[in-house]
């Protein structure tokens, strides 16, 4: 009897390992495509976030995603399917991200990886997703790499750092056409992409980058760089740092009474943690960009009200006023919109839908900003609006 049970167990596990769920029924052009983790009433998706470690502040993104799926499930699911969202922790380490992706795909048999967070982890998982033909959808990173056609299973979501840089350049050309700019940037792909795109956008105009200083993520502080940049006397300061260093730069700028440039804060740094640490006095007059509604600035908006209610109900430990929770919610809404537009119920169908979004509106995106992709343009959100920090919150410019 025990032997029989063992044989049965082996058989079952063998089946699990070899069988891939394949689309059998109509429509005909979908036949043979793969649909692991997807059934008519259920879909399993997995996300990988830094729940621990140095970047664990971004765990709030996962809370927003969870809140959206719980809310959607209570209302009948996404495209009629109940979403089972599995969250894994990579501690912001690329190697662990790959390991977790493998577990999600091989052991939990997810239909798609919905979000990996951060450029290093996303880049590490990308090769695996490509080899296994698993969608890696709407990754949370602003690098331009996610539009690379040689990795057809990966697609980004938010505007690229280059797009953000162009928005700052356009704003300056419109409001201060002869500005001198000092730049502090992180010496890695993120910093270089933003700085290079900014310099290209202002090349040949009256706006001129007169000083640039970098820092390493291993540096203790950016005091010396800030003192040096202040010496340039530039009229504009472009702050291309991750939250910790951007906060140091903001504090240093506020402390220097002799240099009062227009401070441009890059979007990555605009976190609730930074705002709380630096305080409203140091932020007054600072400009940043965004593409979704800041919960604090849109409390009466119907979509934001739905969001606030859902987060409070389904993920009560989350801080609904956090822009990162809102980011997670908005990207999950984009996933739902893509699922609804899927023509073939398969992984191939999901990627095709993600590359054929035509002006899709989401309630929590800023007015006038939509999701638009085509096979030649795999960047869902490409627009940003400029915001200025007033007394206690960001206000549209």
């Amino acid at each position, binding site marked *: 009897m025990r032997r029989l049970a063992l044989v049965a167990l082996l058989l079952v596990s063998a089946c699990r390992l070899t069988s891939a769920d394949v689309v059998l029924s109509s429509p005909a052009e979908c036949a043979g495509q793969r649909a692991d983790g997807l059934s008519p009433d259920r879909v399993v998706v997995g996300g990988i976030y830094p729940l*621990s*470690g*140095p*970047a*664990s*502040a971004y765990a709030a993104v996962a809370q927003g995603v969870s809140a959206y799926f719980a809310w959607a499930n209570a209302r009948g699911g996404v495209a009629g399917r109940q979403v089972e969202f599995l969250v894994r922790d990579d501690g912001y380490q690329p190697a662990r991200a790959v390991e977790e992706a493998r577990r999600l795909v091989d052991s939990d048999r997810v239909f798609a990886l919905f979000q990996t967070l951060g450029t290093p982890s996303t880049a590490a998982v990308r090769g695996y997703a490509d080899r296994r033909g698993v969608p890696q959808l709407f990754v949370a990173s602003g690098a331009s790499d996610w539009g690379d056609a040689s990795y057809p299973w990966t697609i980004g979501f938010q505007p690229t750092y280059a797009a953000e840089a162009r928005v700052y350049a356009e704003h300056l050309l419109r409001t201060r056409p002869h500005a001198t700019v000092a730049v502090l940037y992180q*010496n890695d792909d993120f910093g270089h992409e933003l700085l290079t795109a900014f310099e290209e956008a202002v090349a040949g105009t009256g706006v001129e980058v007169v000083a640039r*200083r*970098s*820092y*390493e993520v*291993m*540096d*203790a*502080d950016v*005091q*010396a*760089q800030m*003192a*040096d940049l202040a*010496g340039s006397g530039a009229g504009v300061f472009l702050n291309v740092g991750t*939250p*910790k260093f951007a*906060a*140091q730069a903001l*504090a240093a700028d506020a*402390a*220097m009474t002799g240099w009062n440039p227009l401070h441009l804060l890059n979007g990555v740094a605009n976190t609730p*943690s*930074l705002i*709380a*640490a*630096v*305080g409203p006095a140091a932020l007054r007059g600072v400009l940043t960009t965004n593409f979704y509604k800041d919960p604090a600035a849109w409390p009466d908006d119907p979509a934001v009200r739905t969001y606030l209610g859902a987060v409070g109900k389904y993920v009560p430990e989350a801080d609904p006023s956090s822009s990162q929770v809102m980011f997670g919610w908005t990207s999950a809404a984009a996933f739902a919109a893509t699922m609804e537009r899927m023509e073939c119920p398969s992984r191939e169908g999901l990627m095709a839908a993600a590359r054929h979004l035509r002006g899709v509106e989401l309630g929590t995106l800023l007015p006038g900003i939509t999701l638009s992709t085509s096979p030649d343009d795999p960047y869902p959100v490409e627009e940003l609006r400029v915001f200025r920090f007033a007394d206690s919150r960001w206000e549209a410019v």
Partner: protein
Amino acid sequence: MIGQVFHGFGTGAVYAALALALVLVHRFTGVVNFAQGELAMVSAYVAWQLVDAGLSYWVALPLTVAVAFGAGALAQRLVMRHAGDAALIMTIGLYVFVHALAAQIWSSALRTFPNPFPGGPLGIVGPLGVVAAVLALLYLVIRHSGAGLTLRAVAADPRAARLSGIRVGRVHALGWGLAAATGAVSGVLIAPVVFLEPGMMGGVLVSALAAAAVGGFVNPVGAVAGGLLIGVAETLAGTYLWADLRVVVPLAIMLVVPAVRLSAFSRVRA
């Protein structure tokens, strides 16, 4: 140029304080304590918690130093005493453990830390003064107190010290306590500038290790001089040579200094 040198001294003072702590532990127990920076980070959190509870900065500081002293001694008694030959590895384990614990308790959100010193070049004098005071205090304790005498006896020859009735284990705990207290000063000094978060001492530790290497891990004066030297060299290299060079400075100094150990430093032993 002058401004950059001032900034270098400010950062260097923090390196010097942590390097001093590394030298104390190494000199009295023979171990390089990789967890020194993390202990300093926790001390900064303790200070922040005290100030947050309404205490004045100048009350919170000595309290924090006292707590750090206790915690350092306790870490030696509870963990390091049993480590034996694995002591070095154990300090790395302690590093990971303390870091994770801090992230668990205080999360990795950035926190503002009050700065008692004014901004600008004059603000540099404050940290330098604090480090000088700590160095002087350590000198007095180690040179002119009974406890200091036993400390030096244990450092010179643990076995002979034990045979003459000194409780070496307790003296080791005292060394760890003194080191943690000194490290706490570095944590509190840098927290206002870098903001409080569990990773704040990571970069500082590398430079402090290099600074301690300048003093051969035994000479406090050499460690302080090394800290200031590295602070200034990093800043100048980053500003006037090539930004990427900044990271290399402590490592280059770590490589170069054992080769050309300044003999002056070896003579002035505190």
